[in-house]
């Protein structure tokens, strides 16, 4: 699998570190326990397109939001996390 880094071009996935779902919103520090449970533990785990965070650790060291199909590993989109999550 190769990930098209917006800064470095297409690179092998072994250059990247995977964190997981990118569409989780961190609750406020005083949010109820339920909200924290959702955020920390519960996952959509979709069969299909998945928005996820990858760190280009052995490249530009930028965090990326990558949209990838979990059935085929086809990469649909990849953007710098700073812009994508703003």
């Amino acid at each position: 699998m190769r990930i098209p880094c917006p800064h470095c071009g297409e690179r092998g996935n072994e250059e990247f570190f995977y964190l997981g779902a990118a569409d989780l919103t961190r609750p406020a520090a005083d949010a109820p326990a339920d909200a924290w449970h959702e955020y920390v533990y519960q996952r959509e785990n979709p069969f299909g397109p998945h928005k996820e965070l990858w760190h280009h650790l052995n490249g530009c060291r930028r965090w990326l939001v990558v949209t990838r199909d979990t059935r085929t590993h086809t990469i649909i989109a990849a953007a710098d996390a700073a812009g994508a999550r703003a």
Partner: protein
Amino acid sequence: MTYSLFSLAREALRGHTGWKPAWRDAAPKPEYDVLVVGGGGHGLATAYYLAKEHGITNVAVLEKSYIGSGNAGRNTTIIRSNYLLPGNERFYEKSMQLWEGLEQDFNYNAMVSQRGVLNLYHSDAQRDQYARRGNAMRLHGVDAELLDEAAVRDMYPFLDYANARFPIRGGLLQRRGGTARHDAVAWGFARGADTRGVDIVQNCEVTGIDVANGRVTGVQTTRGAIRAKKIGLVCAGSSSRVAAMAGLRLPIESHVLQAFVSEGIKPLIDGVITFGAGHFYVSQSDKGGLVFGGDIDGYNSYAQRGSLPVVEDVMESGMALMPAIGRLRLLRQWGGVMDMSMDGSPIIDRTPIDGLFLNAGWCYGGFKATPASGWCFAHTIARDEAHFINSAFRLDRFATGALIDERGAGATPNLH
């Protein structure tokens, strides 16, 4: 038909023409008392113990493909009960005890072989950690032996003891651990369940779960609707997808694990060896191939195939442990999709929906759990409550904080 020396001799004399299929390929009926969704090892074991231990025989196992087509037939077949935490250890030891009597119990040769599982340690800190785990096992009445380097050398002289980075200092040995023939485990449970009246329905994918007034009433499948009072979901790797049909969100990510088999060689490894400085485990099949594996690929995936960087990583770990492996050619490689739970431990529990039960989150260690998982899940379904043995495997433990984080890696499924 009972398998015995007598039946074997009789069939030998008549040219093996009298063997019957081990189970019926049943067509689904419109209604059952219990539906088991997923015909892997755990689903088949659940049906077997429902019938055998609880007398519940109006049961169907619904499998979307053929039985054993999932992880049941894809794993590296290692069985062991060498866990640290109490919630885990009592469960895996129950499983080990069931393995020990399984073949007589279901009258099928599952090739259970207690050839010993040896975890190598490479530093003082790791030895102390293994000593602690070994002591925890012994407190549970389970066998564990801490070996020094000389004792390990005696067993496996060909390992790389002088590795400059990861010298082998010794190991934690569980002699009662070993391997079993994975397909035969699925077939044996299928046959045992079928004999007691359970329908095994293949090519029957569950596509919807019907819930009315907070209670399950049945499922929709590719072979029509089926009604039931109780439904157990046992869909390793697909648990999130299936649970979502009932509106449940799970603390699970699906990840791929690969396995490898080398060309066949003469007997070399008569037990199971695990490398303690990387993720690598190896045993030798009865056909002579070395069977080994390592880390998961590390990112969510429903593709039943692995990626090349992990192939390289596993081979490097193998070379660091036993350089001789570099002389072998790789024969086969494949992948399986597993439920990686948020604390690395499984779930065998009721769900917030009445009559709906969940068996999930086995990560890459659920083959060894097959008998006890079925045994406990059958109890939970039949009695509407967990047995003491699976009482720690609760679905709500992520909310209550009673996690079972054997690895201590936190809520990072790809690190468990």
